[in-house]
């Protein structure tokens, strides 16, 4: 039998609270229903604390600390909405919003309003890079920009298979896909961050198309992507034609029709067509992750013919 878990007392926004030893500041805030924004954090992934939107002010610390990964300690005094925190979040939102298409990140717009962020003040967007240019960029080999445009990561969408697309102008480099493909879930390691600085990007080995890479098409990267950069082909096609309509969609939970593991599927359906399949991050079997059959292998109910 394990010892009773020890608790730690700390103060957040003037409120005393107790959390189990090992809890993060984010968990402590959640327990108090204090809203801390996150992009790169997910309940089913190890925090990598790269996006910095969750920073909070910790009394006595020189820098702001990421709530998602900083463990609570006894006696901490934390402020989640201090002027310093607000300014930092505004900066993060402006840098992200000017360089990345955040239009499908669900909370981005409301956060930008809340923190008075104006990404457009960096100027109009620079034109989209031609296909392949960002992949061939080298650190230190850039010409100085004219300063009239906001530098950004825009490039054409990568469509190299029929299951999901990669639209990296929406990629904020949150690492979630890399973590889900790696040690946090799938352990396939088909993708990683390549390049340095502003050239950093998610890449397959030697930039090969996904079907030639190590990818096993579990779609767990799609499942955790917070910005819509990775998207089901079915959803992408509907959005392209303007037919994507969330008001006509319903999500129903059921169990995968394949092996005996019993993965829960959340089936998003529009007009009696399945448009997206995910799994709840808190399901004890899946922790939110699926395999290629569960996530994509359902077209047989829509008359998909064996090839």
């Amino acid at each position, binding site marked *: 039998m394990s010892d009773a878990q020890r608790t730690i007392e700390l103060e957040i926004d003037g409120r005393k609270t107790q959390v189990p030893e090992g809890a993060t500041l984010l968990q402590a805030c959640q327990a108090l229903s204090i809203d801390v924004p996150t992009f790169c954090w997910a309940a089913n992934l190890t925090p990598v604390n790269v996006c910095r939107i969750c920073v909070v002010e910790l009394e006595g610390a020189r820098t702001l600390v990421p709530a998602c990964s900083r463990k609570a300690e006894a006696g901490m005094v934390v402020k989640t909405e201090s002027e310093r925190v607000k300014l930092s979040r505004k900066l993060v939102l402006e840098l992200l919003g000017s360089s990345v298409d955040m239009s499908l990140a669900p909370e981005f717009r409301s956060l930008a309003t809340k923190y008075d962020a104006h990404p457009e003040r960096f100027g109009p967007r620079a034109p989209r890079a031609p296909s392949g240019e960002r992949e061939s960029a080298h650190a230190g080999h850039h010409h100085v920009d004219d300063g009239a445009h906001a530098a950004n990561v825009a490039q054409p969408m990568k469509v190299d298979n029929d299951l999901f697309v990669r639209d990296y102008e929406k990629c904020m480099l949150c690492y979630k896909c890399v973590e889900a493909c790696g040690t946090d879930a799938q352990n396939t390691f088909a993708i990683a961050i390549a390049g340095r600085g502003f050239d950093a990007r998610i890449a397959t080995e030697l930039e090969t198309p996904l079907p030639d890479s190590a990818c096993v098409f579990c779609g767990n990267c799609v499942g955790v992507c917070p910005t819509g950069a990775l998207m089901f082909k079915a959803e992408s096609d509907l959005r392209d034609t303007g037919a994507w309509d969330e008001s006509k969609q319903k999500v129903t939970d059921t*169990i995968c029709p394949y092996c005996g593991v019993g993965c829960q599927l959340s089936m998003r359906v529009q007009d009696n067509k399945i448009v997206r399949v995910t799994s709840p991050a808190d399901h004890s079997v899946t922790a939110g992750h699926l395999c290629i059959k569960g996530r994509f292998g359902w077209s*047989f109910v829509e008359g998909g013919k064996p090839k």
Partner: protein
Amino acid sequence: MLWGSNARETHPIFFHHVLKAVRKGARLYVVDPRRTPSAEWAEGWLQVEVGADVALANGIAHVILAEGLEHREFIDHATENFAAYRELVQRYDLARTSRLTCIAQEMIQRVARDFAKAERAMICWTLGITEHHNAVDNVLSLINLGLLTGHVGRWGSGLNPLRGQNNVQGGGDSGALPHKLPGFQDVEDDAIRARYDALWGRKVPPKKGWHLTEMFEAMEHGQLTALLVLGENPAQSEADATRCRRLLEGLEFLLVQDIFRTRTAEMADVVLPGSASFCEAEGTVTNSERRVQRVRRSIEPPGNAKDDIEILRALSKRLGYDLGLPNAEAAWDELRLLSPMHHGMSYARIEALGGIQWPCPDEAHPGSPFLHGRLWERPVRGARAGFHPAEDVPPVEQLDDEFPLRLTTGRRLDSYNTGVQSGGYASPRRAKETIDLSPADMRALGLADGERVRVVSRRGAVEAPARADRGLKQGLVFMTLHFPEQVDVNLLTIDATDPRSGTAEFKAAAVRVEKL
């Protein structure tokens, strides 16, 4: 230990849990004749000779006993027939076991020691154990290892057959077995049957029925002349497909209820279009950990397709018994009434708890994460667990000069069984069917990668492209059953079956490969 399981490809999300454990320091051993993607994650891969699993289990037990690593207290307390088992495994010394299994003596010792000494250890298996003519002996040999070391009936220790289909567990649980009523209650027990008779107002037949293999034998002898096939494609999934199709064709009446126009449906007199149970119907399925979970209708079935319960109700009515108008929940509640192990699992509780593991005898019971804990109670509650000594018996079909290669079959990651479900989606990884050979056999036969060859067994022949797989040793070849329209692999497989389970020996046929 994963024994005869390639979970990395066949149970990928279960394997996520395995990988989490491996990353925390758990030791993984994989027993498989092929170097599978699962074996690549193991600290020890035991490249067992096809069909030598009993020998390996007995050999591991020999080491455990020779080194005094058995759980003496558990054996004395909770088991019986140990003396006979000890006597049997004495004959499986390291040299003999190594010879029978083609596994190095040091590896057998390592596995034996690690398994016996582990605080918690588990053996998980799949069809590599059960698709053999001595399937039941294979399973009993693994159970013997669990009893020998006390790795049963405790949290984190145990024996776990990984179920291959989303409700194969639930099917058996709810009485889709020829000798059982719902909840594994014996159909030949008068007192149990009386409860069903009373509720249904009809007599349940007092004798057990036939399992699938016996049904085909009965067709052979003209004792079975009409068949209802519900969501199964035996014309392609059965071993020795030629015989199977001949017997189906010989039926007086074949009724198929399915969502696909399968090869079997094409042979039918009448086809009733059913619904996809996971997304066009309401109900429950039971997974490998005995967790009953809800399936829910998320799309409407196409055209005239009907809910399976509705079809069965209409059929029953024509046969003279009115089931009323049951929906899925009402049918489930009737099962709960008759099956004590399901009694506490109302739909409301299943929803609230996100699934419940049986046995769950009443509505206050939280469900059972593991079984057989009774063996650790003092005194043991119920019967002691028996050792079942089993001897090594090689596959029915021996290799000879005419058929010198061992064909074994299995699944690949993105496909499933005969492909009726998995064949339609646009998997970028789907490869055409191949016959995989060791590089040495490719050279010996003078084959280039992708070259079409003829594969011949005593029962039939198919053509397929050859592919080199370094995960195979010389003499072993591999095919899947996923693409019967391209390559009808079950023309080759042998329907030698285990007399007790009725499972065919899909894992071991003898073939030769001919250059075209």
